[in-house]
């Protein structure tokens, strides 16, 4: 449910002439199936992994924004949250840190002793926990299957900031939807004790989650799902100790319990988070993480729009080791790639990312309901100069134009383009003539709500200029950043879109997981009108044909069948043109020279902080 990664996607730039060492064509990074990772140095070997691991030291991470849910695994939905959770929250299954992209995208057992036993009808998943997993409580006590059940149930707590986290479980686990809807609708001003009762009741009453003993947990699905393992691997399914029931919502300073290699020991809101070694974690119980550094220190209070530059300077100088929420700033990238590629720089694929894109409010009554007319939307598909948008985000080596819903590397990707323009730079003449044919020879006036930070004002101005060439006037309103809220995109009822406050807007999307079974992680979230309200289907698009294809894909029994169905959904959506895709992007990351073994995990678009060691 990662709508917008908490990463300031600064406009990064790369000279088209410098190529990464070993990469035959840098464009191939966009489609992982078509490049050989062993040829790209920062993908083939754990970055800077020479020598043996060194124990000790403090990992310094630096950034400019705090977590949005106080580090609560059931509350966080931004990538910075996922990064940190890797250190203190384990799931039944998880992703290994591997430079082999295929391995990195395939779940392995984490808290579970082995992959689940699945019944022949694909509806029952049985997990058995490893022995030796402990909470760092006083005294330490074992992690139980009830902890995992509790974790999943907590997702529906009404005091959590509304997010889409429960959606995946509601869609798959039998009986969970009823529980979750009831819990979410209850009053947040009731006491934590009342909410604890609700959760405890759920632990016995939800038929799809059963804990026959403290080492076993059995999930029963409402229908088969080829991606259930991925859903269980999401951090929203992390175990939650019984202590979390005392405070809802969890505030900074309450999330101190850990079953991972590190635990949060200091949380200075808006300023700093410090994690130290968890003494009760043992390497023998964990095949994924390590505990090399002594301490992880995240400084969050760099403010100002030049934060990305300052972080970069500190990384280069060695006073910090990793960036937190910022990316390598545009002006710096060129100098890092040429004349020779700086070994501290890595450019990583996040296959399936589509950020940003433009969505139409198909229910808007403005312009006589023009946006409800598919021919109008199809005309506008020709308007955008996607190469210019690429440049705003850093140029051709980091971004590639996208012309469909599913991006390269995501499940169901089969390239096609219903609205080709020369060089993807837009075709104003065609747009104009199609608009005229649709009945709008004098063009339209569209209202655009654009986010007031990062690259969004620049994107808005580019959209405005491109549409203008097509005879469409765009009037922009800057809205609060962070999330589309009350005076922005979000509406309080499905009918709210009919008020027509806005006609177009430019959100972004990062899939919640990657790999050959991640179809559910993109298309339905942004385009499936049947999902529970509010979702991320900002424009109110709903096509029962697409809904049906999505439902079939989600309950397909084989991966091949699912992929095919996702592709069909993709084609159907693009025919309806409810949105205009812009681009898919790579992530440039930098680290200090004393940091060793930096491995990129696609899920958090970041390095795995439990793999690194420090040595000068």
């Amino acid at each position, binding site marked *: 449910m990662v709508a917008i990664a908490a990463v300031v996607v600064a*406009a990064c*730039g790369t000279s088209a002439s410098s190529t990464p060492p070993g990469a035959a064509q840098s464009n191939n990074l966009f489609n992982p199936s078509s490049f050989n990772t062993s040829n790209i140095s920062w993908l083939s070997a754990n970055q800077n992994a020479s020598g043996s691991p060194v124990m000790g030291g403090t990992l310094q991470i630096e950034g400019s924004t705090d977590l949005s849910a106080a580090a609560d695994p059931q509350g966080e939905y931004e990538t910075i949250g996922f990064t940190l959770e890797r250190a203190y929250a384990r799931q039944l299954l998880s992703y290994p840190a591997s430079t082999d992209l295929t391995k990195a995208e395939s779940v392995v057992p984490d808290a579970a002793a082995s992959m689940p036993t699945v019944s022949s009808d694909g509806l029952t998943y049985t997990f058995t926990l490893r022995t030796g997993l402990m909470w760092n409580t006083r005294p330490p006590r074992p992690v139980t299957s009830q902890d995992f059940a509790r974790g999943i149930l907590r997702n529906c707590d009404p005091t959590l900031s509304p997010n889409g986290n429960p959606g995946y479980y509601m869609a798959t686990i039998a009986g969970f939807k009823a529980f979750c809807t009831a819990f979410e609708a209850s009053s947040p001003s009731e006491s934590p004790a009342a909410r604890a009762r609700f959760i405890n009741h759920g632990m016995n009453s939800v038929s799809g989650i059963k804990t026959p003993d403290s080492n076993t947990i059995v999930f029963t699905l409402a229908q088969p799902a080829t991606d259930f393992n991925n859903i269980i691997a999401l951090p929203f399914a992390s175990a939650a100790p019984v202590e979390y029931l005392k405070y809802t919502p969890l505030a900074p300073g309450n999330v101190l319990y850990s079953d991972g290699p590190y635990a949060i020991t200091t949380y200075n809101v808006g300023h700093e988070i410090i994690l130290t070694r968890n003494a009760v974690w043992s390497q023998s119980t964990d095949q994924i993480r390590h505990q090399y550094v002594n301490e992880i220190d995240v400084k969050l209070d760099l403010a100002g*729009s030049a934060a990305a530059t300052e972080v970069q300077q500190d990384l280069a100088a060695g006073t910090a080791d990793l960036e937190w929420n910022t990316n390598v700033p545009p002006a710096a990238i060129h100098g890092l790639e040429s004349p020779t590629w700086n070994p501290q720089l890595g450019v990583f694929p996040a296959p399936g990312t589509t950020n940003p894109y433009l969505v139409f409010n198909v229910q808007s009554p403005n312009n006589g309901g023009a946006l409800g007319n598919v021919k109008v939307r199809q005309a506008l598909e020709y308007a955008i100069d996607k190469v210019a948008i690429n440049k705003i985000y850093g140029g*051709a080596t980091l971004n590639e134009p996208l012309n469909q819903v599913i991006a390269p590397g995501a499940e169901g990707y089969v390239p096609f383009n219903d609205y080709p323009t020369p060089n993807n730079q837009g075709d104003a003449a065609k747009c104009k003539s199609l608009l005229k044919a649709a009945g709008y020879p004098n063009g339209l006036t569209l209202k655009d709500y654009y986010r007031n930070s990062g690259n969004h004002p620049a994107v808005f101005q580019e959209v405005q200029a491109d549409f203008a060439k097509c005879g469409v006037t765009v009037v922009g309103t800057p809205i609060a950043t962070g999330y589309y809220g009350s005076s922005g995109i979000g509406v309080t009822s499905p009918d709210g879109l009919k008020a027509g406050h806005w006609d177009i807007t430019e959100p972004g999307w990062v899939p919640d997981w990657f790999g050959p079974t991640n179809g559910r992680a993109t298309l339905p979230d942004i385009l499936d009108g049947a999902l529970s309200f509010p979702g991320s289907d900002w424009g109110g698009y709903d096509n029962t044909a697409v809904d049906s294809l999505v439902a079939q894909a989600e309950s397909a029994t084989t991966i091949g069948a699912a992929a095919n169905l996702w592709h069909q959904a993709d084609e159907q959506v693009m025919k309806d043109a409810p949105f205009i895709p812009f681009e898919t992007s790579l992530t440039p990351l930098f680290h200090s020279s004393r940091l060793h073994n930096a491995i990129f995990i696609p899920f958090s678009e970041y390095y795995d902080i439990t793999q690194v060691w420090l040595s000068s």
Partner: protein
Amino acid sequence: MSLSTVEVAYPEVSPEEPAAGGIQGRTPLRLVIARLRTDRVAIASIVVILLIVLLAIGAPLIAAITGHGPTETNVDTGTDANGQPLPPGSAGYLLGTDNLGRDILVRIAYGARISLLVGVLATAIATVVGVVIGLFAGYYGGWFDSVLARLMDVVLSFPYVMFAIVLVSVFGPSLPLTILVIAFFSFAAIGRIVRGQALSQREKEYVEAAHSLGAGNLRIMFVDILPNLVAPVIVLATLLIPAAIIFEATLSFLGLGVVPPTPSWGNMLSDAEGVGFQAWWFYIFPMLFLLLTTLAFNLLGDAVRDALDPRTERIFAGRRKKKRT
């Protein structure tokens, strides 16, 4: 900028002021103009202001000559391969480009329009409102005056940006709102001075005389007292214009004033912050024009004030003597 410290040493100019040091009688206006003519700094500032006005008026011409519009994005040809702005002198961009490839010279010219428009209009509104309120408060006195005076004090001392934030958070940023916010904040500066003057003037004999002649309050306020205030009000208004320009630039810089794509010197600097210091032309040129404009208005305001103040006659007499010999 703290408007509350804009001070004017206003002379008490009653209607018949003998021309100091002069042989023939001249009206105050002619006196002022004569003095200003000898003030080189004043002349220089007037010239600068006229040039900026010309720049603003001629903005479409500049756009036509260079072939670049102020708001059309130009990312493909106006930025380098990394999407970074081009430095001055590249490919027909005299002052370089911004982060979306637009011509900075053209945007500065259009930005001049905004600055001048907001500066003059907001000041005009503030002046009218301030004069009216100041007159009423000072003339009627009593609790009415106390409340208004206190209100003006608070308005003057309230952090104006905070105030603008409140209004923008409620109504959203726009040009008319910016003008209104600045005018609202500035009226108190004028109102305070006018009130002080009105307070002292109403004790004067000519006011008493007008009363006894049967003149109504309104007539006394606007026909008898007001002409005496023209001098300080003009000085204050001239000095308020640069304050208003600075105010608008600050609001636009914070994203609370003029919003893109309309260029304003303030929001250009805000865009520049996002790009970074290595694109120095994106910073320096808007800064330069902003400073030049405000400096010119401030110098002019000071010069007008000196010209209106009979106590400075020594200086002007000296200058005239220099010219004669």
